[in-house]
């Protein structure tokens, strides 16, 4: 199995406060890794650092994506290299239509790969096809990005964008939070259908519930900015039953 992501001794801080304190994690193609941990453990910080959020400073360590120095890349380059984040809190962008937003994203990625932009017709066909995957209403793509979307619609919209962009590494940050059971099933099925032997996912959650639908190969527990325990999916059940206390 080819190595997709290698995180070594990653330390990162925000506003002078160290949040990640030596994270080590290797992800191979085809794998699903769950990261669990209490509120404030640093899960969203890890996803922000991997995607290049400007508020965070990496103070130590390295991250390689298919052998390339991920941390040296601008956020948009990381995205075009195939890193996708399903945001814990998707951002509303009034006045920018879903269509214009997606067209810019797809065509900039294609340009980066040396491909021609999609024609208007090809693009709309692709949008329609991917919308179906998450049972997203047609009308949503005429609206501004996430504006006025319900919590569930926002999360579906994240998975829709993931389907459009076909990332090699997707990070799902609490994609299950605030979803009712139907929306959860749709989102999880979407994610499962996008799985290939060549891509991988990091599923961040603090409920075991999502992992009934998206079955992880590994479960990691993040506490105080470090991975303190790794196991298989039974670890998630154990955490559900006994909480995090007995680990720390």
């Amino acid at each position, binding site marked *: 199995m080819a190595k997709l992501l290698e995180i070594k001794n990653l330390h990162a801080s925000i506003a002078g406060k160290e949040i990640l304190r030596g994270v080590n994690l290797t992800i191979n193609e085809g794998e699903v890794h769950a990261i669990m941990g209490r509120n404030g453990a640093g899960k969203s910080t890890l996803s922000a650092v991997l995607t290049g959020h400007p508020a965070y400073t990496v103070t130590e360590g390295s991250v390689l994506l298919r052998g390339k120095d991920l941390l040296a890349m601008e956020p948009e380059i990381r*995205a075009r290299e195939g890193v996708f*984040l399903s945001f814990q809190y998707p951002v509303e962008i009034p006045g920018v239509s879903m269509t214009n937003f997606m067209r810019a994203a797809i065509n900039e990625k294609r340009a*980066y790969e040396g491909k021609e932009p999609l024609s208007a017709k090809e693009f709309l066909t692709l949008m329609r096809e991917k919308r179906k995957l998450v049972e997203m209403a047609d009308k949503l793509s005429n609206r501004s990005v996430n504006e006025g979307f319900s919590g569930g619609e926002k999360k579906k919209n994240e998975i829709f964008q993931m389907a459009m962009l076909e990332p090699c590494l997707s990070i799902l940050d609490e994609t299950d939070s605030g979803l009712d059971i139907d929306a959860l099933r749709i989102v999880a099925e979407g994610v499962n259908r996008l799985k290939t032997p060549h891509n991988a996912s990091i599923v961040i959650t603090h409920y075991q519930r999502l992992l009934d639908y998206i079955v992880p190969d590994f479960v990691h527990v993040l506490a105080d900015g470090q991975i303190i325990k790794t196991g298989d999916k039974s670890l998630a059940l154990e955490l559900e039953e006994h909480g995090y206390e007995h680990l720390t």
Partner: protein
Amino acid sequence: MHLNLKNMDTSTLHKGDRFEHVFLNEPVDIHIIQEAGSTVKIHILNLPSLQEKNEERLNRIIIDQTGPNCTTEIYGLAYLQGEAKVTTETHVNHLVGEGKSDQLIKFVLEDQAQGRFLGELKIAPDAQKVESHQTNRNLVLSADAEMRTQPQLEIYADDVQASHGASTGQLDEAALFYMQQRGISKQKARQLLVNAFMMDVINTISEESLRENLINTLSLD
């Protein structure tokens, strides 16, 4: 309805008349007296790629609503670069009741540009049942650009609906990052946000061909 706007003095819009005009990078200095039931809809656009970078300009509109049931709509959009300095002044006087006025004035400032909006709104003591809204929104894209906003509201009637709001800000960093995370370059992301900011003024232009033209020229779509 045609008003002679060349020599700025005072023009009167007679009962029931309608005056609609888009001032696109043209000097604006007009005083319109509106009689009962008349309608004014004015756009003042100062747009880049269509204008000199370093010009200084004063846009001034004075409106007197002198009869009931008048409607006044004023839209302003200035996108300034270089050392451009633009002041837009609106003076809307509701001298009688049962009139409406709506204003949406926006500035986008880059480089060392300076924008100024002075919005004077008067509702006379007996001008009851007036509905009046004034909104000023500004986007400052450079640390060296400067925006000054001076709303001046003098409302002497008590049975009116009047609202005003002014805000000056930068591009939404969270939105920029969200777009970059989808592979959109920072520059393109900025452009999309600036376009979104400008579109709601452009969208109020009645004449479709002009609207489309502007959208194309400014590559707003």
